[in-house]
């Protein structure tokens, strides 16, 4: 099965606001999702410059095609589970 890509923004703003901590997924991801995801550190995806304010603020993480804003470790893990479950159906 193809792995689900999780892109963690490492632009300065996202990194300082908490993306640095979400990188914990690289080391100790929850067991149920561990071998189903691939973590990629990406450069600024420019969501923070999106002035139409649909996306509020960083850190930004892309789980597959879905954007998580104001991301936290917990939020990203939940989103990963949600996307994985959807794909199974």
């Amino acid at each position: 099965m193809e792995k689900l890509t999780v892109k963690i923004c490492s632009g300065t703003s996202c990194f300082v606001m908490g993306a640095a901590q979400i990188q914990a997924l690289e080391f100790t991801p929850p067991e149920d999702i561990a071998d189903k995801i691939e973590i990629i550190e990406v450069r600024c995806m420019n969501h923070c410059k999106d002035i139409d304010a649909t996306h509020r603020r960083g850190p930004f993480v892309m789980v597959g095609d879905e954007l998580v804003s104001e991301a936290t470790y917990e939020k990203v893990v939940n989103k990963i589970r949600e996307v994985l479950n959807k794909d199974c159906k």
Partner: protein
Amino acid sequence: MLIPKNNANQMRSLILIKIAESFLKDRFASADRIPLELRPKGEPHSRCCIYKDRAVLKYRAMAGMGISPDEETDEVTSLREYGEEALARKEKARSKLAVIDIACSACVKAQYMVTNACRGCFARPCQVNCPKGAISFVNGQAHIDPDKCVNCGKCHEVCPYHSIIRIPVPCEEACPVDAIKKDEFGVEHIDTEKCISCGKCLMSCPFGAIVERSQMIDVLKLIKDTDKKVVAMLAPAFVGQFPNDIANVVGALKKLGFADVVEVAVGADITTRKEAAEFVERMEEGANFMTTSCCPAYFRAAKVHIPEIEPFVSHTKTPMYYTAELLKQEQPDCVSVFVGPCLAKRVEAEYDPNVDYVLTFEEIGAMLVADGINIEECPAEEFHQISSAQGRQFPLSGGVAGAVASLVEGKADIRPEKIDGLSKENIKLLKRYATKGCDNNMLEVMCCEGGCIAGPGCIALAKKASRAVESYVAKGENLKDKE
């Protein structure tokens, strides 16, 4: 397990960003919006209501401006007014940890409690093993008499159903020197005489009730509103704390307004040389062992709480001291700002005339974000003076002792031991070593478990940061070859 920062810690970064933004935007004219922007209407709240969340945020923001919440004299004073006060002050904000009384949840006193998992079994090991006869059975379940219980934990250990839990007070549990205690209302207070400024309470409080006065505004004022030459001294732990290459980080700091950026690892090289020489000398004099001295929290703990170990503490100065000394010799008119992972360094700086300000990586990160600087887009700039592998490994547990040992080799017998983290147990261990002697003769003491890369002012994950530091160490020249 690797535990990422929690909401309380993450909120601290956001508050600092908001404060720096408010400074840059209009010098705090609209600072009163900060708590509202962080907890807007309609968003979920985490305390009793959104208003309490905002009230606590106001106190946390005050600390970010360098004003301790316990300095409040009138509750009506607004953040804008506190901002004006911060802008007007001539003296920098002095280091101080404090508890926001309204945010302190006054956790119940640490205790053992029987849960519903108790089956009221026939064996009743809890009752049999309790040395104080504090356990009786009520309605078929164990019950602990709080007047008799001495919190020994025997019942908790022996229960076959794990039905007896320990409820700790996180800050008291984290404080290695018993400096934080409850008042008669259950609210925690910090005893400044006992406090070693390690920041463990601040990191552990689940309510974000413990704050520290920041000097961020003092430095922002200097770099944005004066033409003073402000120089950043980056602690060796900075490697891995920011995204992109080290050279870009240096470029970003210059863009932010620092006139120059120097590496404290250069001072750490000097510490390594001097400490190695001191070690050889002490061993020749017949000393049982020597301990490192570059961790300011340990240095203070030795002074106040472990006086028996003081004679064994190295007299060599810290990397910050030597770096600042060099800097002030070269550029006597500059303002020096130490940037590191450490809160206790602020206290050390108060005794060091060459260090003017101390910021954390988190504060520098907040300043960069607020100023819209993306490190990746900044020009690469090199340090003028390049550090060696020895100085670069200081922020890792085992690094300082390893660096010193590499220079002692062949001159004396060195048996290093690392005290990784200044816990209550390790303080007892150090006391024992001081009075009863130690098998090893070079003790490296680091207050933060894992080393400075796990300090309270860090942004990155300790594990990731230690990899970055290791690879930077590998690229460094050996100090031995430079001699």
